């Protein structure tokens, strides 16, 4: 019970900090928008071509954006010297991770919801008919990105060259998420859309595996 109340208190803190400045959200949205526009120059964005390349492009943009967005997650605590205070205020350090990864998932989903319609219009790919399923994939994928990303940002925050290090650690680790979510999204954006259960199940398994790993090893990541 205390894990839940701790988590929700910390989650409130994370959301308050972000919504006061909205720094992360605005920069991430602009970054993804930039990637989407720049990608249009690398191939001929007709409807058929967009269906082929669009899903991968979209997830690659999300992944790169996430690897930048997750930077300040623990760095902020470190520069403000608030990590020890955080650790003392909770019984289980897992609550810190749970709060941060929930906040990161929410931020990612928010930027994705903002950019999905723009992507759909620019690349001429209708998303409305499969919106419900698309939200499920976005949720499972973003959750996986946030779980692994939150754990690794706790590592990279304690190293040199941290801005470069986080993408280097995170992106190879997220290969399974990229493959599975791209495949599921491609199936949904197909002219005759279908739900690829295999991919959805795979994403769920990834989330559960890494959440368990974080639960088991998270406390060591925050050792002073």
């Amino acid at each position, binding site marked *: 019970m205390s894990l839940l109340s701790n988590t929700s208190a910390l989650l409130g803190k994370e959301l308050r900090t972000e919504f006061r400045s909205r720094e992360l959200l605005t920069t991430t949205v602009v970054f993804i928008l930039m990637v989407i526009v720049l990608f249009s120059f690398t191939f001929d964005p007709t409807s058929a071509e967009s269906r082929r390349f669009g899903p991968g492009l979209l997830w690659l943009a999300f992944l790169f954006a996430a690897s930048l967005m997750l930077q300040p997650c623990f760095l902020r605590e470190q520069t403000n010297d608030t990590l020890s205070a955080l650790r003392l205020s909770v019984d289980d350090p897992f609550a810190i991770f749970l709060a941060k990864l929930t906040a990161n998932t929410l931020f990612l989903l928010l930027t994705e919801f903002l950019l999905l319609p723009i992507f759909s219009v620019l690349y001429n790919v209708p998303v409305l008919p499969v919106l419900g399923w698309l939200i499920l994939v976005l949720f499972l994928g973003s959750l996986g990105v946030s779980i692994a990303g939150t754990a690794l940002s706790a*590592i990279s925050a304690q190293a040199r060259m941290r801005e470069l*290090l986080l993408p280097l650690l995170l992106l*190879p680790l997220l290969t*399974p998420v990229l*493959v599975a979510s791209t495949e599921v999204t491609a199936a949904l954006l197909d002219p005759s859309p279908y739900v690829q259960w295999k991919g959805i199940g*795979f994403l769920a398994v990834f989330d559960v595996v890494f959440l368990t790993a974080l639960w088991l090893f998270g406390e060591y990541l925050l050792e002073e």
Partner: protein
Amino acid sequence: MVRQVIAAVVVLLLMAFAAYAALFVAPTERSMGVIQRIFYLHVPSAWTAFTAFFICFLANLQYVFRRQPRWDWLAVASAEVGLAFTTVVLVTGPIWAHPVWGIWWTWDARLTSTFVLWLLYVSYLLLRTLIEEPDRRALLSALFGIFAFIDVPLVFGAIRWWRTQHPQPVILGAPGSGLHPTMRAVLFFCWIAMLGLMTLLLRQRYQLEAMRAELDIVRRESEAA
């Protein structure tokens, strides 16, 4: 010292026998011809790399729970050795693939996942160079090593499910697959030779790391004095 020389000589002899067996004892494969013999370097290297990464994972776990520096030394030694063997796999693969498939590289399941595996352990070693303090470096890299190792089956699964061109496994593969008994014997002999080489390298690298740690302590003490 004498023991190390003897061990090195034994491994060298094993490697020489393995090379002889791979080149002259094993029968020539019917459709691929001589180029198939690279298989005796390629596959044992892959198995040896996995063995090294598994040792790295166990050492990482041991370090997290016990906090003895020697587990960290073993972890970095096995990660480096595993990476070297993975590099052999990634280099010999295309050499075989070019005459047989007609292309150097294809984004197939096992090639791609081996490449991702290679990248994961490159980032592991990179992370180690970017943390100064030995205890913190050991702990954080051990944790990343654990996450990376957990990720490996997921990488394999994801890539394997969505595309494949690599020859199906010939050992413990589907029914109908299989090797000529001599080929199988040579393959396993080559693997044993490779494991011998791995053990030798691991030992050397471990001792180097131990000496480095000792030197580090002495240097700190002299700076403090």
